[in-house]
């Protein structure tokens, strides 16, 4: 009987969620002038829309990972949503391929103000070895900030879940440790 086995497994597993990492203010790239207002409106809860602007799908693996039980991202008030119209933050992986440039701009425009953009990974941030390998060329616009304004850049190939969470928290909290 599946229900019996399922409940048994849940109780045996217990709670594996870990404490959240501290926000990293060093990842911020521009002052968030609306920050006070955002915090007033949203508190510490934030909805995220992920946009793959042309990544190798390595960064996506870690976005999936932070949705897993150890990281408990929803427990921190962070939730992934299906439409840009429902979110406060765009989490963009890339570099931005020319074939997705228009789609990314439209997604940005469809996201209501006030909003944040977090560029995830070396290619999206235009840094590191991968960022150098995947710079602008005939098929690519290069890093995200070449196409839309970016608030926080999270380096790494791919960034670890801890780094990604710290980057998201840096955008949301303006560097104030949660």
């Amino acid at each position: 009987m599946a229900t019996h086995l399922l409940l048994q497994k849940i109780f045996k597993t217990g709670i594996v969620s870990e404490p959240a990492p501290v926000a990293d203010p060093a990842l911020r790239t521009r002052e968030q002038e609306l920050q006070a207002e955002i915090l007033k409106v949203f508190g510490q809860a934030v909805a995220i829309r992920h946009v793959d602007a042309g990544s190798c799908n390595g960064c996506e693996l870690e976005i999936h990972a932070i949705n897993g039980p150890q990281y408990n991202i929803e427990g921190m008030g962070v939730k992934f949503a299906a439409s840009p119209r429902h979110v406060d933050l765009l989490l963009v992986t890339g570099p931005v391929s020319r074939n997705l440039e228009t789609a990314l701009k439209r997604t940005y425009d469809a996201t209501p103000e006030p909003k944040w953009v977090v560029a995830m990974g070396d290619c999206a941030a235009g840094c590191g070895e991968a960022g150098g390998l995947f710079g602008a060329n005939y098929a690519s616009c290069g890093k995200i900030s070449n196409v839309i304004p970016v608030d926080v850049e999270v380096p790494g190939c791919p960034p670890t879940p801890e780094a990604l969470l710290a980057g998201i928290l840096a955008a949301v909290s303006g560097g104030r440790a949660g």
Partner: protein
Amino acid sequence: MKINGLDWNLAPLAEHIWRGEVTPDALPDLARAVKEEGGQLVALWGSDERHLAGQGSGCFAVHAAFITAGGLAWVSAALDAKQPAYPDLSATFPQAERMQRATYDLLGLTAEGAVDSRKWLRHKAWAADEFPLRKDFAASAGDPAPVDGYPFIRVEGEGVHEIPVGPIHAGTIEPGHFRFSIIGDRILKLEQRLGYTHQGVEKRFEGRDLATGAKLAGRVSGDSHSAFTWAYCMAVEQALGARVPERAQWLRGLFLEIERVANHLGDLGYLGNDVALSFGFMQFWRLKEDWLRLCRDLFGHRYLFDRIVPGGVAADLDDPGRRRLADLSHRIEGEVRELKAIYDEHATLQDRFANTGICKPALAARLGLTGLAGRASAQAWDARVQFPQAPYDRLEVNMATGRKGDVLARAEVRFAEVFESLRLIRAILDKLPNGDLAAPLPVADGVCQGLGWVEGWRGEILVAVRIAADGRLDRVHPHDPSWQNWPLLEIGVLGNIVPDFPLINKSFNLSYSGQDL
């Protein structure tokens, strides 16, 4: 080597890999011979040869890799400079169609007689009369080309309507466009439009040194990092006649199986999630996270990025590490068996999985379905089993297969492969020979080429490499099995309801970046 009883003048290039030249006109005959023998087309690509002085009369070349009873046959046909064209192969192997269209977009080589000659990878980044992989193409970020539309095939009639989905999707997945034509809730036709993540990867290889090429290869499709890097390194080492230390070969096998387990655990979790069993997602992703963290502790990277390098590997394993990996593989095996019992008994899950997204064996054979999805539709190919290279020649891999070709069969193959890979990992840990981790590469004396072939978690991955006389990369073509399998997804969803599409899609879990290049 003979194919279907005929001698095609193929010479051995490496173990299980054969190389030959044919005239363009002979390509369809060769394709039919392969087909009659029960083989398949794996990859088709082109190259610009005009800069290779004294390398024969060809100015362009079209290349095809066939899987045959005797191994992998890599054949090339030289093409004319003014009107580079070759006969269509998609009449024999339908999977050739998109590869042929991409070969035109990138190099201007025409498949004569092809039914579908619409553009494929080209959207708006370059104009219809420009070809990025020609050596005289300027690879800089130029002005955007004028946008020409893409003619979708329209289904018309009473009650038919279209649902356009993407390129930006509702979940954390890669971008692509799906055009559904439906009646009520049932899918009458699905047409895919891919190429959105085209990054010009093949152009980026040109002129790079061999070590940098390995890093690029690993980022063709990040979830198959070790498979692509290994295939690339295999091709480079073959081209240069390099010998790889035994320990490095075994560690490469270890990394590939670790990658397979990680991806299958993630997919099994998402398959549960897609039928509203979030318990499955949380349990499998808990295990996957434990697995990734051990990789970080033992090898310094959660996904083993850049741990395979030309000449060997860049990470080692000590005895305490071996014990930790063996212990975790035992624990995960036990837990996955518990979770499989729950999946097996869960009525809703079984109801959604069974008879959903069917690719029947006959259709799979005709259209060239490959890899784990192929094995779930009775296409019993696995390079580790039939054509094992070191270390698999000493490991006796058991192939997982199914016949029903539905979501359930693809899930069952994943379960079986998780158990088999965990067994293989322990076998590798037991037998891991001592020795060096890498050997220096010989220097290239003139233009040379090689082909790497690795059974990744999704299916067979090929990387063809040509090294120029200066020792730098001249042409690299990475091939992901998603090329063959995407068209089968169009067919597997027919007659299913639209809400089952995400589940069927996940059961294939194909790479966008791997085929968009």
